[in-house]
């Protein structure tokens, strides 16, 4: 099939974790959805047709995770799915909430008073600390534990099977933010394996369409089974009363198409390119975050000691390379990374950029970027910014 290159108007796009380029098959599904007349909730012919399309997508999506269709709640995206989980499994029933230190703001801002479980220098959840916290809440009705399957900045996978086992042992509900991991399942990665082994059978999962190659504005919360959940938006009682509002039919169809195709993709191709790129970055003076632990096949978190991430982003953007750092806020200013801070990087938390290869990246793109990165590091070294050979694990 035809792969659109991740470049547009002389830009080279290497920021897939912000949003993946739209997959052609997802665009096709989107067009079919847009062409369909009718609201899926309507009783007439057009509405019923729309409903059938939505339900087919639901069944397909839920089936990917081995769940029944009615456990699948469509949302407007990952943030809503995560917020709905925190609300429904946490706040609404008064459960104590435990979250990982490197969670996305979608979780952190939804659970501001949560107990934060630390991570180690590789970004892995400290399971001993999690167990201590779970044990202290054991007498209650059980806690809500929110952990991301793979980190958006570093790509580091959480030890999902261990965490799931602890949650089962202490009667806690496990919610997995699978936004970055779900569209990049190779079958052998820790997330795929945890899904396949049944370890996550009792967990809820948050998904986002545009991180899989679908369109922005669609996501889902996958429940352990078909069960009621206090909604954030009661509205007209859509999604079996768990999420009101007319579902974005076309966007959800694109999500289903994107997910299916992402699972057929050869992710080792990206991983090889990723490893090549990391070698180039290291040679230029960078330190790769979480390099020794399982990570997403497409993500590089490269810390250039002494050089502000903002400077790196600007220098690369001027040359036409789209990458990112930390969490860009709505104003576009680059903030320090709470993820790298939690990993004990201190000052370095403001000196790392994220390069995330899109699903359709080509080898020449990665090599061109590698050269640009080396040139940039060289220039900063000449300007006296680069600190050499910082020791990190």
């Amino acid at each position: 099939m035809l792969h659109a290159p991740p470049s547009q108007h002389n830009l080279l796009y290497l920021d897939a974790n912000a949003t993946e380029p739209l997959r052609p098959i997802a665009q096709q599904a989107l067009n079919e959805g847009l062409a369909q007349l009718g609201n899926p909730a309507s009783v007439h012919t057009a509405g019923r047709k729309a409903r059938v399309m939505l339900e087919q997508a639901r069944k397909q999506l839920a089936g990917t995770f081995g769940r029944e269709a009615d456990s699948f709640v469509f949302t407007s995206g990952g943030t809503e799915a995560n917020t709905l989980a925190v609300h429904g499994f946490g706040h609404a029933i008064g459960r104590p909430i435990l979250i990982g230190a490197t969670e996305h703001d979608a979780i952190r801002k939804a659970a501001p008073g949560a107990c934060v479980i630390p991570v180690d220098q590789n970004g892995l959840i400290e399971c001993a600390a999690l167990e201590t916290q779970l044990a202290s809440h054991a007498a209650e009705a059980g806690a809500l534990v929110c952990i991301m399957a793979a980190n958006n900045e570093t790509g580091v996978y959480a030890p999902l099977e261990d965490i799931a086992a602890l949650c089962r042992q202490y009667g806690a509900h496990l919610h997995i933010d699978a936004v970055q991991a779900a569209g990049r399942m190779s079958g052998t990665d820790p997330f795929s394996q945890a899904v396949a082994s049944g370890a996550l059978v009792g967990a809820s999962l948050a998904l986002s369409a545009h991180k899989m190659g679908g369109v922005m504005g669609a996501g889902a919360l996958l429940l352990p089974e078909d069960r009621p959940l206090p909604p954030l938006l009661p509205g007209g009682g859509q999604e079996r009363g768990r999420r009101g509002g007319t579902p974005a039919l076309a966007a959800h169809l694109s999500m289903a198409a994107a997910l299916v195709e992402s699972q057929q993709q050869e992710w080792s191709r990206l991983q090889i390119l990723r490893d090549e790129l990391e070698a180039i970055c290291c040679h230029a003076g960078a330190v790769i975050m979480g390099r020794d632990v399982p990570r997403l096949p497409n993500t590089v978190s490269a810390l250039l000691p002494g050089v502000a991430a903002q400077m790196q982003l600007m220098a690369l953007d001027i040359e036409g390379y789209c990458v990112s750092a930390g969490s860009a806020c709505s104003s576009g200013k680059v903030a320090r990374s709470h993820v790298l801070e939690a990993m004990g990087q201190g000052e370095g938390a403001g000196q790392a950029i994220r390069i995330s290869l899109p699903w359709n990246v080509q080898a020449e793109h990665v090599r061109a970027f590698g050269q640009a990165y080396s040139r940039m590091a060289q220039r900063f070294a000449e300007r006296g910014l680069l600190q050499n050979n910082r020791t990190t694990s």
Partner: protein
Amino acid sequence: MRILVAMSGGVDSSVVAALLKQQGHEVIGATLQLYDHSGPAKPGACCAGRDIMDARLVAEKIGFPHYVIDAESRFRDSVIESFADSYARGETPVPCVACNQGVKFTDLLTMARDLGCEAMATGHYVRRVEGPTGVEMHRPVDRDRDQSWFLFATTREQLEFLRFPLGEMPDKAHVRALAEELGLDVATKRDSQDICFVTNGSYATLVEKMRPEIGGPGDIVDEHGNVLGQHEGIARYTVGQSRRLGDIHTGTGERQMVTAIDVPSRRIIVGPRQKVIHDESRRIVQLRDMNWLIDAPADGVRCGVQLRAREGLRQALIRPLEGNRAEVQLEEPALPAPGQACVMYEGERVLGGGFILA
């Protein structure tokens, strides 16, 4: 050449960026985020100020990259905190000078160099002139917009790298017309006023909130310590002012003015205006943190000095002293406010300046 343009989101710097782009330069726009627009109660919170978005829209429209630089903590430390400290010492600071000196012409300028820029441009109204012995700073063509007084602390090295295209503009109407011509939405945006980080209430309220120890009422006294009345907080007074002295003018039968602010006792000291402004002992002023835009002449330089932002020139002899200080001998007595700037001019040219010591 590759040139970084410091963009505030206002009409002036937008026109500068668009003009440079039109002239064929590789323009990079940068907007400093100096403070959290949602108020000091939420440090570090995310925000998208209207001005930042305006700058971004200009950049997209004209077609050059634009970045938002987080300068919040640096601005807080180097400008807002020192602004409050200065008031707490009984001075009247000029935060715009501190901001130009630090955040803009040190930090942003370094960033421009790091990005491989050959120059940095701003929307200031001042002229940079290539003189026979190096680069010079001159007053702008539009004297109503003259910002040279606020830029005296620009070093020669910084000046070398800087560009001020608006210095040549005949007037603001011309700049707005250019903005209109260039199709910039900010063409009709109103000018910024006063101190940018004082967004609600007065600067004095902010200072008193930051330095509560100097807040509250105190005595207004004459030079002998006789209590003449009460004041509402020393941060509300500046040496040389006659306002806010209540009925003291009528009480003493003479128009009074503030001659000093005594911080430990929180007293405002006043004297009869006619007597003070003719007091021959008030002809010597000491300056700190001098910035010379000429080679500092050992014997001193006779030139005009401007002691406040909006004020005429006074004739004086300025002699450099040890420790980057200087002594100003004014031809006529004056009552400059500590913390303000004393800027030296020879014709249109800025020769340098320093901050007035108590």
